[in-house]
């Protein structure tokens, strides 16, 4: 089969580019520790917020816990059109693990200016861990359209 020289060049260039991109993604995952958030566990969305049933049923102001110095976890319940809690405060340099689930429809969870970006699906707890070294306010928003009040669904992560 005859392939023109220019076409050969383009085919070779395209394949090379894809290989370079794939290697770069592998490097970001292996060397830089950038991972895709994974489902943590399955829950019943109808009972997940029932007090005593799960950490998502705890009073809102008790859903951010200090596990050890510099190590925190937060259980965020998403529902139309609010995150509970919608304000989280941690000291700078802390490692924060977020557990997020929905009790109604599908939502999204994105912390601006970070790599935290995940889907929030009823019946599934999404988990992500990140260390926040830089003090400041990081807004988190729902980025999956969830109804007429979608644009009001946001919160603040304050690193002090």
């Amino acid at each position, binding site marked *: 089969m005859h392939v023109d020289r220019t076409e050969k060049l383009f085919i070779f260039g395209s394949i090379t580019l894809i290989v370079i991109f794939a290697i*770069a993604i592998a490097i*970001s995952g292996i060397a830089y520790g950038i991972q895709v958030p994974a489902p943590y566990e399955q829950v019943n969305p109808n009972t997940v917020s029932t007090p005593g049933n799960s950490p998502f049923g705890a009073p809102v102001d008790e859903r951010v816990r200090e596990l050890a110095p510099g190590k925190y976890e937060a259980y965020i319940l998403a529902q139309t059109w609010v995150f509970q809690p919608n304000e989280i405060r941690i000291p700078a340099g802390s490692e924060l693990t977020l557990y997020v689930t929905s009790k109604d429809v599908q939502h999204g969870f994105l912390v601006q200016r970070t790599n*935290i970006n995940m889907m929030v699906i009823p019946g599934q707890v999404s988990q992500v861990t990140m260390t926040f070294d830089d003090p400041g306010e990081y807004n988190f928003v729902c980025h999956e359209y969830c109804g007429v009040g979608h644009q009001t669904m946001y919160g603040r992560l304050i690193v002090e």
Partner: protein
Amino acid sequence: MKKEDKYKVPQGTIALMIIFIILIIALWGSAYLTMIARGPVG
């Protein structure tokens, strides 16, 4: 039409492809470096 005219190097297409490739590398590279700079998540 002469044979050599039929197989002329498609300079316009090559120019467009080069611009396209440079753009893809620049946009992809910018997104990649931003992701690296934002630090690890897991």
